[in-house]
C-alpha cells in the first residue's frame, strides 16, 4: 500500500507501523468522576468495520509522524491522510 504522507508525499506502507483505531486519540481524562468506565471503553471497545476506517499509522522508518489514515479495510483504498497531531487538536486534545 501507498500512504500519501501529508508532509512527505507518497510512502510505502512498509515504512509504517500500524496501531489501530484512531479513536485511541480520544483518551479520557483520568481525574474525572467515572474515569474507570470511560477508560474501560477507551482501552477495550473498538470498532472493527469492514469498510471505511480511521486508523493510526506511525512513520517509524521515516519522519516519526503519527498519521490518521482513512482506509477502506476491504479494498485498501486510502481516501484521506492527516497528521494525528492535527486530528488530536481538532478533537480537543491539548496539553
Amino acid at each position, binding site marked *: *500500500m501507498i500512504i500519501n504522507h501529508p508532509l512527505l508525499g507518497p510512502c510505502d506502507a512498509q515504512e509504517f*507501523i500500524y496501531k489501530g483505531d484512531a479513536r485511541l*486519540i480520544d483518551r479520557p481524562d483520568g481525574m474525572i468522576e467515572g474515569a474507570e468506565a470511560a*477508560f474501560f471503553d477507551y*482501552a477495550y471497545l473498538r470498532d472493527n468495520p469492514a469498510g471505511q476506517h480511521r486508523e493510526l499509522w*506511525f512513520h517509524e522508518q521515516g519522519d516519526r509522524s503519527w498519521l490518521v489514515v482513512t482506509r477502506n479495510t476491504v479494498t485498501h483504498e486510502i481516501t484521506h491522510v492527516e497528521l494525528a497531531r492535527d*486530528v*488530536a487538536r481538532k478533537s480537543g486534545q*491539548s496539553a
Partner: protein
Amino acid sequence: MSRLPTGGQIDRARKISFRFDGQYYKGHPGDTLASALLANGVRLMGRSFKYHRPRGVLTAGSEEPNALVELRTGGRQEPNTRATTIELFDGLQAKSQNAWPGLKFDALAINDRLSNFLTAGFYYKTFMWPAAFWEKLYEPIIRRAAGLGSITTKPDPDLYDKGFLHCDLLVIGAGPSGLAAALTAGRAGARVILADEDFRMGGRLNAETFQLGDVAGAQWAAQAVAELASLPNVRLLPRTTVFGAFDHGVYGAVERVSDHLLTPAPGKPRQILWRIYSKRALLCAGAIERPIAFANNDRPGIMTASALRTYVNRWAASPAEAVALFTNNDDGHRTARDLVAAGVKVAAVIDTRTDAPALQGVEVLAGAQVTDSTGRLGLKSVTVRQANGQSRKLDVGALGVAGGWNPNVALTCHQRGRPVWDGAIAAFVPGAELPQGMEVAGAALGQFSTHAALHGGADGARRILADIGISATAADLPQAEDAPVNITPFWHVGGTKRAWLDFQNDVTVKDVKLAHQENFRSVEHLKRYTTLGMATDQGKTSNMGGLAVMAELTGQSIEATGTTIFRPPYTPVAMGVIAGRSTGRDFKPTRLTPSHTWATEQGAVFVEVGMWLRAQWFPQAGEKTWRESVDREVLATRASVGVCDVTTLGKIDVQGRDAAAFLNRIYCNGFAKLAVGRVRYGLMLREDGIAMDDGTAARLAEDHFVVTTTTANAVPVYRHMEFARQCLWPDMDVQLISTTEAWAQYAIAGPNARKLLQKIVDPGFDISNDAFPFMACGEITVCGGLRARLFRISFSGELAYELAVPTRYGDALIRRLMQAGEEFDVTPYGTEALGVMRIEKGHATGNELNGTTTARDLGMGRMVSDKKDSIGTVLSRREGLNQPDGLRLVGFLPKNPQARVLAGAHLLEPGADMTAANDLGYVTSACYSPNLQSYIAIGFLKSGENRMGDVLRAASPLTGEDTEVEIVSAHFIDPEGERLRA
C-alpha cells in the same frame, strides 16, 4: 520430431550442448529446453503426479502443466522448472521428475492400473482405517509416490537481489498490444516499463506467420523492441514475470537475470525481485489456449494446437512425420495451414463443428470427434468418430488440440476482481473491478485479432496517459490480420475411459463427475475435492474445462456456475529471490556495541540480544565451564570493581518546557518534582494497567531529561512516547529523539567504582559521595576534556555508576577504564554476571515485566501515584488487578542450595498434585549465586507477601524437576541498600 531445414528464430550457426536424463543433445541459441528436446525427437519429458503416466509438453509457454524438470545440479538444483520456458544454454543439465527407476520404465506406473482406487478424494476415504495407519503408513507411502520434483538440501550459491522501480505506465506483456502500448507511451515521453516473461519480446508475433504491414510479425516486433530500447524513458524487462498486482499500483516482478547462463557472471545476481510502483498499468498478457478432453488425451505428442504451430514457426521443430488437429474453432485451422506451409503432413483436421469450413490441401472431418489414442510412451494413432458415426484410425505422431482461447486474466483477479463470461468468444474476460490503476488490452481483454490487439494497446496507452496528464499521438500502426472468432464451445468427448482435464494433478472428467455425485458442486469445492487447478500451473489450462464439465452436470450455464479466481504469484517464485540477500548471517542486521572489538580481543563469548551482540562472559585461562567465568566475574565485581557495556539499553532524549510534565504522565510514579542533577527509577504502564517497561530518567536541566529503556523495548517505548506526545497531548512543548546509538555507556560497579572513576574523571568534577550521591547525574568531562554523562545508578546493587561518552569514544573508554582499573583488579563482566547480580538484588527485568504483571505484582503498587493522570493508572486500580490473593514478586531459596531452580517452574504446596488447579505462581528468573553459594530465584507467588518463610515446591512437568524452596524476600543481597549509597 526433428528440426525443419529452414525457418525459426534460432541461431543455426551456433550449436549448444545440453543433457537431459544423462543423455547428451544439441540445440541452438534461441531454443527452449522443450523445443530443443522436440527437435531431437524427444517427446517423453515427465511422469504425471498421481498415475505416473508418461507425459510430454502440452504447451509452449509458462502455463505448462506436464514438462516439469529438475534443472541444474548440486546447490543450484531447482525442481518443477518448466521445460517450455527454460532458455537453452551450453552445459544445461536437466532431469525428469517423479519417475523411478527411469522415465521410460517407472515402477509406480502401477498407480495407473489402480486408478479405480485413486479417484478424487481417495485419501479422504480409502485410507481412513485404522486411524493410526494414516500417519505411519499410508501418508508416507502416498507422499513418496506422489509429488513433483525434489529440492536440493545444499545451500544455494547464488545471489538474489531486490530492487525498486517507478514508472508512469507499466506494460505487462510484450506481444502486439503491449508493444503498441509501449511505443505509444514511450514516444510521448512517459516513463514506461515493459516487462515480458519470455527472453524474446514479441509474444504471439514470434509464433505466427502472418505479416504486419509488409514485414513478418516477428520482424515488426524486433523493430519495435529496438526502437523502445533506444528511448531513455523506456525500460525493457525481458525474462521478467510480473507475478502479482498489489495495492495502489504496486506490482511484484521477478527478473531472471542469469537463469539463461550456466552460472551467473561474477557479482551478478541470479534473479532480482522488483517492486514496481506504477501510476498506471496496462495488462497485455495475451491468452492461453485450452485443450479438449477425450480418452487418453495425455499422451506425449498431444498438445495444444497453438503450441504445435509455435514449435514449428518459432523453433522449426517439426512435430512428427504426420500430425492431426482436433478443433472446435477456426484457430485450429490456422495451425493446419501453418504446418502445411512448413512442409509437415497434416493427416486431417477433426472439427467438432458440423459446419466446419473447408481447408485447402487438408481433409477436414466436420462434426467429428477424437475418441481415443494409442502409444505407450508417445502418440501412435488417434481414433476418430466421424459425423456419420463411423470410426476411423489416423496414424499420427502428434495431435494439436484447439479448444478455444482463454484471456489471461490472472492479474486482474489479484484484488478479488471476478472475470465475467463472454459468450461471443466462449471465455471469461476481465470483470469491471480491476486492481487500482490497471487497464487491460489485447487478447487478455478478449481482443483476439492482431489488428484489435495493436489498436487496443495503442488506444489504451493514450487513454491512460491522458488521464495522468501526458498527451500522446495516435501511433502509426501496421496493417494486420483481423480474423473474427468463430467457435462453437466443445469441452469434452463423452465415453467411459479417462479423459484428462488437469494434466498436472491427474484430474479427469470422471473425477469431476464423482465430485458432482458427492455434492461437491461449487467451483471452490470442486477445486479442493479433486485438486483441479492446484500446484505449479494453478489450472491455467484446466480450470475452464473442469468448470464447463461441472456446468454441464448441474445443468447450469457456465456463468451461473462461476469461476475460481487467481491469486499471486502468477507463476512460481523461488524462495531465494523473496529472501534476497537476507540469508544466513545477513538475515537481519547485527548491531555491535562500542566495546565489541575490545571484547573480541578478550575472547568474550557473545550472545544475541535482539539484533545486538553482547558479551555474555569473558572466559579466562583454566576456566572449563561458563559458570566458573560468571561466578568469578560476580565475585570480583562485588569484591572490588567490574565494568560492563550497557550501551544497548534504549536512550531517549526528552527536551522542552513541558518535559517534566510529559514524563509525569508517561511514568506511573511522580516526575514533576525531580531536581536537576538527579535520576529517578520510573515504571511505565500500558493504558490497561499492565507494566510495560522500566528504566531511569535523569534530569540534566530544567527542560532536559535522558530516559533509559530496557534493551528489548527501546523501539516500542519510543513509539509509545511519540504516540503520547503527538496524539494525546499535542500542545505540550516537548521533543523526543532516540539517542541509543549516540552514546557508548558503561556500568562501573563495585566498592572501588568511585576510586576507579576518580582516575579518569577530570579534576574539576567532584564525584565524592557528598557531592555526587546515589541517584545523582551530571554532565562532566573525562580523560582530559572528553564530554561525558555520569549517572550514579546501580543495577547490580553495588556502589555503581553508568558513564556515557559519544559512541566513537566507546572503544577508547573501555581500554582506558581497564588500564586505570588495573590496580583494583578491575574485571569486565558480561550479561550473565549482570543477570546474576540483578537477581541477587531482586531487580525486575523483561522476565518479570512480561506483559501480564502489574506494578502491584512487582511490589511497586505504592509507586503508582493517584494524584495525577498518567498512562495506565486508572485501569491499574481495577478490581481484577487488585485481588487479595494476587501475585507478588518474591524470592526463592532452595532447601538444598545445590538443587537447581528453573525459570518457568510453577509453585505448588508440598504434596499437591502437579495440576493447573494447584498452581500458586511461577519462577521468572533463576541463577546460581556465588555470593550465597546457592541457587536462587525470583518469581510471582499468590499472596507472596504473606508467605515469607513458607516452604513450597518449584516444579516443572516439562523437565520433571521438583525442588523444595523457601519463600524469601526478592532482595538477597544488601536489602537495606547500604552498598548503593556507600
